[in-house]
């Protein structure tokens, strides 16, 4: 029986889709059977980030409304054997799926996959409620901005109310130099408010933009700092102890590579 993760944030544009793609791709390259579910109905883009847009025939709404069988809607990744995508519908809206349908869908997917990773839409409305309905665990993504942290806090409260306890936190787009200069919230500032477990920190990195446009998640790039950060997150999800990188030092990624014996 697999596990269902929902990747959520409250605030838009903080990196949910990027994170979903990189966690899914990373877990699949570690040999796991993974399905990514795009629950951002109406604003489909997980397929684009994975470079699978041209293969879509059926989508999640076709499945939940009985237009096709689940198996027909699942798209196989072009690189990784164990990776699959259930795409969102582009032409419908977020009310096209109900929380009950989502729960049923997740139960089905869990039978076949080790990990089900759901890309949640921004906001706290129906789309959010649908996306979390079938989840066992939540990962909250935030950026080091006061407004994003505020929304993450709101989301954590709503997750708790929905019995999704102890979410894990990813802090995305951190810029060590700005943190050092006191121009950006530090990891400690954010944890002090949110009081949840940190599962990873992703630096601001133009390789994310480059790889996203190529439809090829950065986690597959062995040289980028953000790819390394996502690989660490995936190892933590798989239960490994990977030391958290210190943002204090310059070149902390170099040090990190040394610690975990890469390069």
């Amino acid at each position, binding site marked *: 029986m697999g596990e269902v993760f929902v990747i959520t944030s409250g605030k838009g544009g903080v990196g949910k889709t990027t994170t979903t793609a990189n966690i899914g791709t990373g877990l699949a390259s570690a040999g796991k059977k993974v399905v990514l579910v795009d629950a951002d109905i109406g604003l489909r883009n997980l397929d684009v980030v994975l470079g699978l847009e041209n293969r879509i025939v059926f989508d999640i709404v076709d499945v939940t409304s009985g237009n096709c069988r689940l198996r027909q809607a699942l798209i196989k990744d072009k690189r990784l054997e164990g990776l699959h995508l259930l795409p969102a519908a582009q032409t419908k809206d977020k009310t096209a799926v109900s929380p009950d349908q989502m729960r049923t869908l997740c139960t089905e997917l869990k039978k076949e996959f080790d990990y089900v990773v759901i890309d949640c839409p921004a906001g706290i409305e129906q789309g959010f409620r649908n996306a979390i309905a079938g989840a066992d665990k939540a990962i909250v993504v935030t950026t080091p901005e006061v407004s994003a942290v505020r929304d993450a*806090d*709101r989301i954590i*409260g709503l997750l708790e109310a929905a019995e999704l306890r102890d979410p894990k936190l990813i802090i995305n787009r951190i810029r060590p130099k700005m943190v050092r200069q006191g121009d950006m919230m530090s990891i400690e500032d954010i944890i*002090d*408010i949110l009081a949840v477990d940190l599962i990873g920190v992703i630096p601001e990195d133009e390789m994310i933009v480059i790889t996203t446009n190529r439809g090829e998640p950065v986690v597959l790039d062995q040289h980028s700092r953000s790819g390394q950060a996502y690989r660490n997150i995936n190892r933590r999800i798989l239960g490994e102890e990977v030391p958290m990188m210190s943002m204090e030092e310059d070149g902390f990624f170099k040090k990190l590579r040394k610690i975990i014996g890469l390069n």
Partner: protein
Amino acid sequence: MAYSRGNSHSDILSGFGQGLPLDQEDLVDENTILVQRTLRSGQSIRYNGNVVVLGDVNPGAEISAAGNVIVMGALRGVVHAGAGGDEKAVVLAFKLQPTQLRISNHITRPPDNETPDADHPEMARIRDGVVTIEVFQTGLNDRAGVGK
């Protein structure tokens, strides 16, 4: 208008022995609710009595109480004590860093230039018609009959 933090520690501590002693037994009475979690952004508590929070009150959260508000953690949201007009109501927190603090019909906020880093409990109350923040001395250790 901004509230003012009390003068020096020793001054305030000695202040407890002087003019305006606070009867700590009155901080919470039988009309008190205990909130055993952190209040996160968007969550609020309204109560016709005292409110004690065993956790933080995060930015974007709100508490409104007819009586006192006690937060056993960081208070960073909006708080209103004495919401029904009680001028004797107090707000007490381990880390008192509210977005806005109201007692009775006094509405105050931290001074704009202040980055409070309170690492000791503080208490807000009305003194001479002005909301004032003071260091809070628990005195729990040398008090008999606590937790009556």
